[in-house]
């Protein structure tokens, strides 16, 4: 199973939402779409889903254009969640599953273990308006996968969820990946993307800034970086750092070209109390920040 998108373009009036976006996925891989707000991630996903038509370009599922048969094999979780608040959870799940080609009996059967897994079994016969926000999001995730789709598209799937729910969804996504599904999701959550994505595509202002295997991209941008866990206040490190990302207790530093990790260690050792020092590939977050800044300076 694979999806291939070739040179997708989409504009709204004078605004180019997506410019020349291309990608290709394989079975059993997770593809991450990363970008700031308004970058064009949701528009891209909607074009792949067939909700929006691209102005130019082509999208193929297993070599075919989107049709009803393929639509039944797709699971979609939109960015802005919405289900029928006045209706009972079970009825909504059955309805959405039937639209995906599942029979009523099969839908009822399949929802049981999923509801149990997300601890929603007691709410099966309740109206969705009685659900909390997190519960409604979990229910909507269930509606996305209840028909065991081959292609799963998730727009900001972790947004608004507590850590336990994030882990539950992540576990299911990894299970689906291992069973050969094609998964694509957009997110701002770099940590999650880093943990589960095999491929990423970074979008900014509609442009595809970088795309490819996550590991290869990290190697490509991962020259001369260190990660330091410390106590105390971080001093001015502009003499050794080209870029850095500071957190309360650690910092990730991309060293200047003429600075070695040993030199950086020597510089820092008498200024802060170092708990851990590591030569690393940069995090997706710092690659993201670097590329977006470079991209914006070019603009």
């Amino acid at each position, binding site marked *: 199973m694979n999806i291939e998108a070739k040179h997708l373009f989409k504009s709204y009036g004078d605004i180019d939402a997506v410019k020349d976006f291309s990608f290709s996925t394989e079975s059993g891989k997770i593809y991450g779409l990363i970008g700031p707000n308004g970058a064009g991630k949701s528009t891209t996903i909607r074009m792949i*889903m067939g909700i929006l038509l691209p102005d130019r370009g082509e999208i193929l599922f297993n070599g075919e254009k989107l049709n009803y048969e393929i639509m039944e094999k797709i699971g979609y979780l939109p960015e802005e969640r919405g*289900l*029928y608040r006045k209706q009972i959870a079970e009825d909504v799940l059955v309805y959405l599953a039937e*639209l995906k080609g599942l029979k009523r009996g099969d839908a009822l059967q399949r929802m049981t273990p999923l509801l149990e897994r997300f601890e929603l079994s007691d709410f099966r016969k309740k109206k969705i308006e009685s659900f909390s926000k997190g519960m409604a999001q979990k229910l909507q995730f269930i509606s996305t996968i209840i028909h065991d789709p081959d292609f799963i598209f998730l727009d900001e799937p972790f947004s608004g969820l507590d850590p336990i729910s994030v882990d539950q969804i992540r576990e299911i996504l990894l299970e689906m990946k291992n069973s050969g599904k094609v998964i694509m999701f957009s997110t701002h959550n770099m940590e999650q993307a880093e943990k589960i994505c095999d491929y990423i595509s970074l979008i900014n202002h509609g442009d595809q800034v970088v795309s490819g295997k996550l590991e290869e991209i990290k190697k490509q941008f991962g020259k001369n970086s260190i990660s330091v866990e410390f106590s105390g206040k971080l001093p001015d490190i502009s003499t050794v750092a080209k870029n850095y990302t500071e957190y309360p207790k650690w910092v990730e530093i991309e060293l200047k070209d003429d600075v070695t990790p040993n030199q950086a260690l020597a510089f820092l050792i008498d200024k802060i109390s170092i708990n851990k020092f590591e030569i690393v590939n940069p995090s997706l977050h710092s690659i993201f920040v670097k590329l977006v800044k470079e991209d914006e300076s070019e603009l």
Partner: protein
Amino acid sequence: MKKFIIIFKHEFKVFAMNKTFIVLTILGPFFLFAISILPSILTTNITKAVTLVVSGDPVNIVDLVTASLKQTSIKVLNEDQFIELLNSNKKYRDNKNIQEKIDIARNKNDRNAMVSLFDFATSSKIIDGYLYLNADVMQSNKAELVLKDVADFTTVGTVQYVLQQVLSSLRLVENGMDPGLVQKLVVQPEIIVKQISEKGKIKQDFLTVLMTGIGFSLLVYMTILLYGQSIGRAVLTEKTSKTIEVLLSSTKPLNILYGKIFGQGVAALLQYFIWISMGLVFLKFIGPLVNVNFSLPFQIEYLAYLIIFFLLGFFLYAALYSIAGAASDDQQNLDQLAWPFIIFLIIPLVMISPIVTNSSSPLVVAMSLFPMTSPIVMFVRIISSTVSISEIILSISLLLVFIIISMLIASRIFPIGILMSGRKFSFKDIKTWLKG
């Protein structure tokens, strides 16, 4: 087709299982009963309820008018009977001011005092009004009829007719005709009103027809508006809650549009069938058992026209409301966009009286053919007058054409509008979407 059927079944179930729908279905027969049967009861009660005092200076004319009015359904009182009625109530018997005025009116023969008592009694609803004849009524040909309810044209018409008969007779006698001969010649004819139909003639009366026309036009108006608004709201809710995106990942926009309209349309049709069936069962079987014998003020077959015109009206306004829902961003926006076509539902209600009384006039005929008003107007014309089958077919045909055009417009606008959000859209935006 498969997706359309799934959406159709879902929309039907959601609509028909809704509490409002169930309550309306149960209460509907009572409403239908009221608008079918009550007009007959009410018209009888209305004419019987009027109590008038006849007073004035030319005693002979007052007596003649009183005697003639007593032969109608109006209850007539002379001045003595009026005072007796007033004094029968302890509140007025003990009222010093009223008793003083009665004394002045009687003992000093003060007409102003008597008239002020009449005014008081009319405004206090002790009587419905009074007819006062001045001394020069024969010469001036004018009289004063004071009523609490000046819209009571039946009473006004009756009093006018009686007075005209009395004055004409007196003038003939004054000009030398034999009184006995005048009485024979000036006889009020009895007019029996009947409506012609395929089954022959049915006795009918104007007020029953008017009330029935008002009732059924209200029913069709309310149900079309209610169900149309439901469609608009459902589209708006799916759009603003983003549920529409989930649906669009499974099916095409037009399946959603048509599934919604037909699903709710069939639910509404079911409701009409339940209402009519319950009504007919009552009329045919239960009514006679409990000794209640009523009849519909029109042929039962005309109920088929009720269903046809309601259904056609529903589909037309459902298509229009789906356009408005798709183009709206909130309920207020929806109401603003829907207003221009709701007007066409309101106009027949406002004009119901001329529609009933003048149903063959060019304007009313045009309204019964113009698709935006015909669902209400044509049905009211059918039950209140004889409408040719060719006119009915033409009205239905024009409605069908309009429905197809509206559905085609909705088909263009709905897929675009449901994905647009963030601001209020105007008719200009809708026009742009239509051009594609």
